[in-house]
């Protein structure tokens, strides 16, 4: 009798699942739902949270002006990928199964890659906001675009400008084996090659640390022994904060430059202001320094809701991704991915985004992004470096 009751219980459960899955399918949604993938939990939650808030702010601005496709409101469906490749694939699978017309995805090139593979396979237009590895657009993906820049631009900037500013001859480059970091390191090395061949500079250290660790004294000791004039770290901010502290503690005194994923408020918090001030980074323009009318409007709206303006440039690229995709849907009157991709790559020109004018090339890259050199001020802010 007990067993029969038990079996009955299980069958009821199964039936409930059955019926609800039918039911969910039947409802039709008037709003246009755009997917957003990001690291909402985990060590990179600060990026994911800001991206979510930026995209929602941008959507609210559009909705206030009347929405798209004749009055349909934009809704954002956020899926967490915790900055892990497997979670990213799962997030992509989930968003595809929910049949959203487009996806804005994610922070971290190594996390973007598996998602973009899945979106490509299922033919879903996806725009990246925090993935600058050159490899992503070199493999002929049709449905992938990005509103952020590429690491070769950054590598060139380091080689041309930063090295000159500090008159550095002995260069130490440290990465963390993840796609973006490796890509930036490689591109920097490539950009430095002409100077290396001319005998002007020398790369004295080129190695990796393991992300997720907390003790880097061993590789840092090796770096110290090579006596560099400048230390370029191309990894991410959780490690960067610890690295600068440990580096200074064991006696590395040369200028510390981070790539565009290495320095932010979390970095300053982890490293402590004492160690963080004076550190530099090669970075796309921060929102506070952008003056376009769209940027001003966005800053006001975001500040009104949250009390500060976003410090991450990537979150702002996410907002721009939303602006651009909403515009494309509105202009083409369609939510079909092929139509949207064709429009974005071939017909969109000089769309006024928060971060400037947006157009995409055939590969899906954004045309015309720039890099600056920022320094951490004594108060813990970021300013453009004046040598």
């Amino acid at each position, binding site marked *: 009798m007990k067993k029969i009751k038990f079996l009955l219980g299980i069958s009821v459960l199964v039936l409930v699942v059955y019926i609800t899955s039918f039911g969910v399918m039947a409802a039709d949604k008037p709003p246009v739902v755009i997917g957003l993938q990001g690291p909402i939990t985990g060590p990179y939650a600060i990026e994911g949270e800001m991206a979510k808030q930026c995209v929602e702010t941008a959507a609210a601005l559009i909705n206030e002006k009347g929405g798209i496709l004749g009055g349909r409101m934009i809704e954002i469906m956020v899926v967490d990928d915790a900055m892990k490749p497997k979670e990213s694939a799962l997030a992509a699978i989930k968003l595809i199964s929910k049949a959203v017309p487009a996806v804005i995805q994610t922070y971290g090139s190594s996390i973007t890659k598996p998602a973009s593979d899945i979106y490509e396979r299922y033919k879903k237009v996806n725009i990246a906001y925090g993935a600058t590895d050159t490899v992503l657009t070199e493999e002929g993906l049709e449905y992938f675009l990005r509103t952020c820049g590429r690491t070769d631009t950054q590598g060139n900037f380091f080689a041309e400008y930063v090295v000159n500013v500090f008159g550095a001859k002995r260069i130490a480059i440290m990465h963390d084996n993840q796609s973006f970091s490796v890509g930036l390191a490689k591109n920097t090395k490539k950009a430095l090659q002409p100077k290396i061949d001319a005998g002007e500079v020398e790369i004295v250290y080129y190695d990796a640390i393991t992300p997720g660790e907390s003790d880097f004294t061993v590789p840092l000791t090796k770096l110290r*022994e090579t006596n560099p004039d400048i230390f370029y770290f191309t990894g991410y901010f959780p490690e960067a904060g610890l690295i600068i502290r440990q580096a200074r*503690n*064991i006696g590395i005194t040369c200028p510390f430059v981070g790539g565009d994923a290495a320095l932010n408020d979390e970095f300053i918090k982890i490293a*402590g202001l004492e160690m963080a001030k004076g550190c530099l980074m090669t970075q796309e323009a921060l929102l506070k320094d952008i003056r376009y009318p769209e940027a001003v409007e966005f800053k006001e709206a975001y500040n009104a809701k949250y009390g500060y303006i976003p410090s991450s440039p990537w979150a702002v690229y996410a907002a721009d991704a939303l602006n651009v995709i909403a515009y494309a849907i509105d202009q083409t009157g369609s939510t079909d991915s092929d139509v949207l991709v064709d429009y974005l790559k071939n017909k969109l020109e000089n769309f006024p985004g928060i971060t400037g004018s947006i157009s995409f090339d055939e590969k899906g890259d954004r045309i015309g992004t720039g890099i600056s050199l920022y320094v951490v001020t004594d108060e813990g802010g970021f300013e453009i470096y004046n040598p």
Partner: protein
Amino acid sequence: MRVFLEQLLNGLTIGSFYALIALGYSMVYGVMKLINFAHGDLFALGSYLGFTILVLGTAYITSYLGLWGGMIAAMLIAAICLAVVGTLVERIAYRPIYPSGRLPAVVSALGVSIFLQNAIMVVWGPRPQAYIASVVPSAYIKMGEIRITLLQIIILVLSFLLMGILYYIIQKTTFGAAIRASALDRDTAALMGININTIIFFIFALGPALGGTAGVMVGMYYRKISFVMGWNYGLKAFTATILGGIGNIPGAMIGGLLLGILEMLGSVYISTAYKDVFVFIVLILVLIFRPRGLLGEKIAEKV
């Protein structure tokens, strides 16, 4: 030479963290034959409690007691809280399961581990937290070319002090003999008149307390703490326990220190990336060729 000495010092510091955590594992396993998977997360909890006390209450503590006083106060408070939590965990999650055998105990311990880890995440947020600079002493001295922070010295001194006290209790007092007896054979010990409940209370209070102290120290040393740190340290500390001989208290201390040094030297001379692999291979070799660890006793299997 400089590198070797620096890394030796590092290894000792990390080793003392492992040792303090390993003591908790060893005591519990020795007496209860239970691998307390939640122990690592108790250590993490200690770290977070220290964070709360120091960083969030920073004005009060450090203004009254100074940096060092603040650290000691944080460790004491963390230790006491962890002792309470540890005994609660035992009472709620483990005691009802003893009659059901070993496997349900493992699942229960895993459940507690998941619960604690996520409780930390819920209370303190999913982002890693930092022991900010103003609560961490940064003074250092130089011996030759080697830079040793005062913090490192204090940590080493404190750890050895705690281990020394525990060693004394276990080896030289009657109560310690009672603990050792219970570890050897719980039922006979009970028959001999030893109050097992007191023993259990002691190990589940002291083990986590030591772990909590280690947590505060780790927080000050590395400055960055996250809610997943319990798992990593827990596993290494457990390896240290095995290395020293499970159930053997001095063994846990030696195992911990040895593990720290092995890990550091392995990372310098073999490979930084594979240092954890190296540690685990050592563990497996020890288990295959000398399962009782360095100091453990041979235990015959009863038929």
